[in-house]
């Protein structure tokens, strides 16, 4: 059973059909690339899957359950997590606090438990969350920046952090929105190897919107190409890169 299945997903705005009848499937542990020219509807698709937008019609089925129209935080609790291209981290919090906030829901300690905690209990609570946060940061070698304000970190580090934040939520499906945009080749290697580690160790399914074709072709096992809100091709990197319709969409016709 695929971890995510989209059936005839459609989103119409007044005067614009952003996404039309999109079908898509992702399996556990699979890395699927979602590519297409600018304005093709990739981010809209992500918004539809992650609950930021509600579809005009169609269904989103996650772990076998119809989750169409579910709110973002409900989906995140179920294991469907999305990263953003630009809003990668909580800018004004420290790096450590970023991860501790990301761990907040999973920590199981809500408002009352924190309010009524004695100093001893609070110390234990905080130590546990802090330890988990540091372990996560160490996966990307970011532990050294724990007490720096996240906003001053260079964008490469911030992008890494956004993966760590998503990882803290224990995702079973990860939607990565342009994870390597703005990174140099070294940073790309490090980030993609982190993504692959997440996939290998957790079996997380991954959908990646990316414009960097080298990364897409190297990393994705399956690629879906959309243009004008509709799927125009699907297949392995080899199949897609030689597909006439895809070439036309990106380069124009002869």
């Amino acid at each position: 059973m695929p971890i995510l299945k989209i059936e005839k997903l459609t989103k119409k705005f007044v005067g614009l059909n952003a996404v039309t009848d999109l079908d898509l499937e992702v399996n556990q542990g699979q890395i699927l690339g979602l590519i297409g020219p600018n304005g093709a509807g990739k981010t809209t698709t992500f918004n539809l899957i992650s609950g930021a937008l509600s579809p005009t019609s169609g269904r989103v089925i996650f772990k076998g359950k119809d989750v169409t129209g579910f709110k973002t935080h409900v989906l995140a609790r179920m294991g469907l997590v999305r990263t953003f291209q630009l809003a990668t981290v909580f800018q004004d919090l420290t790096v450590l606090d970023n991860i501790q906030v990301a761990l907040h829901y999973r920590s199981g300690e809500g408002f009352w438990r924190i309010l009524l905690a004695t100093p001893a209990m609070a110390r234990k609570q905080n130590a546990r969350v802090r330890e988990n946060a540091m372990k996560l940061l160490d996966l990307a070698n970011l532990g050294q920046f724990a007490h720096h304000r996240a906003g001053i970190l260079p964008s490469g580090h911030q992008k890494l952090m956004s993966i760590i934040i998503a990882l803290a939520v224990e995702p079973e499906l990860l939607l990565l929105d342009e994870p390597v945009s703005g990174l140099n080749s070294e940073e790309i290697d490090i980030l993609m190897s982190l993504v692959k580690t997440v996939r290998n160790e957790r079996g997380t399914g991954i959908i990646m919107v990316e414009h960097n074709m080298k990364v897409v072709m190297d990393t994705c096992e399956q690629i879906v190409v959309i243009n004008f809100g509709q799927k125009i091709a699907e297949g392995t990197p080899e199949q897609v890169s030689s597909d006439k319709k895809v070439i036309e969409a990106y380069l124009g016709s002869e």
Partner: protein
Amino acid sequence: MKSQKWQLFIPFIILLLLILVPVFWHSPRYLSLFNLLFLNIILALGVFSLWSVGMINAAQPVFFGLGAYTVAILLVRVHMPYWLAFPIAGIIPAAIAGAFGFVALKMKGAYFLFLTIALCELIGWIWVAWKGLFRGSVGFYPIPQPEIKIFGLKVLFSQSLVPYYYLALILAVITCLFYFKIHQSRIGRVWESVGKHEDLLANTGVSVFAQKEICFVASCFFAGLAGAVYAPYMTIVSPTQFTLWQGIWIVLGVLVGGIFSPIGAIVGTVFMAVLGVFLTRFSNTQPLILGVILVFVLLFMPSGLFGVPGRVINKIRDMAPNHNIEKEESGKRF
């Protein structure tokens, strides 16, 4: 650790001084200034807290007033003892806030602010129009004094302002403890993220709406309790005591003091109170002076009075980490 102990020292000293004030200053005028200051601090902390989740509440006097009216109605009509009416005066405004928030908190910040302004006007109108329950523009007078016994001795609320001073001080201290604890904890960080990065936070499984509701309901609970102290203290409760103008003063106080920490709210409220005392001579130009202050603060001190030291510290902190990052990247791969 040493700096933390230092930090606890100052509030202790301030608290000690405040406890001793009535011993040295008997003048009702000064005691009543402190009383109102304590109550305003409670209101300001609630407004600050809600500001951290991205919502500005200009209707704090409404919830304050609902608490006062609850006590008035319960004491005068139902002859309920004060110790029972007191918590109810917190619960009713909190419940109304919960209902109002269910609709209003789903909107963007600016619309929420407009809705609170509308709420001010609406509730103000209800207090005047629903004469059966609220006794219209006349209001409730006189309000029976609380009958509280400590160690068997009756506390003389009717004879002096001193018991009210301590009642208001105790409530303010409890409110401060609540807000400092919450805002220093992870909840504080989560709430700041609600204000600034809603979408990212939602993707970590946090219900942004639930956090806003909790924050709002808590702030109106304390506002209601403050109203419960205010009602017997003033001995009169009427609609003109709880206006939008006061709500704006509270919001300005929080802004001027600094919206980044509960201390800012307290500092700003004290500042506005001192200003208010000076400005009583110039009641015609109050709006002008307030406007000038607002523009000055927004232009030159956007982090507020209490934010200025923080910004300087941040600037220093920001300079050092950059230096470290340069060293690391040139020396080794991360």
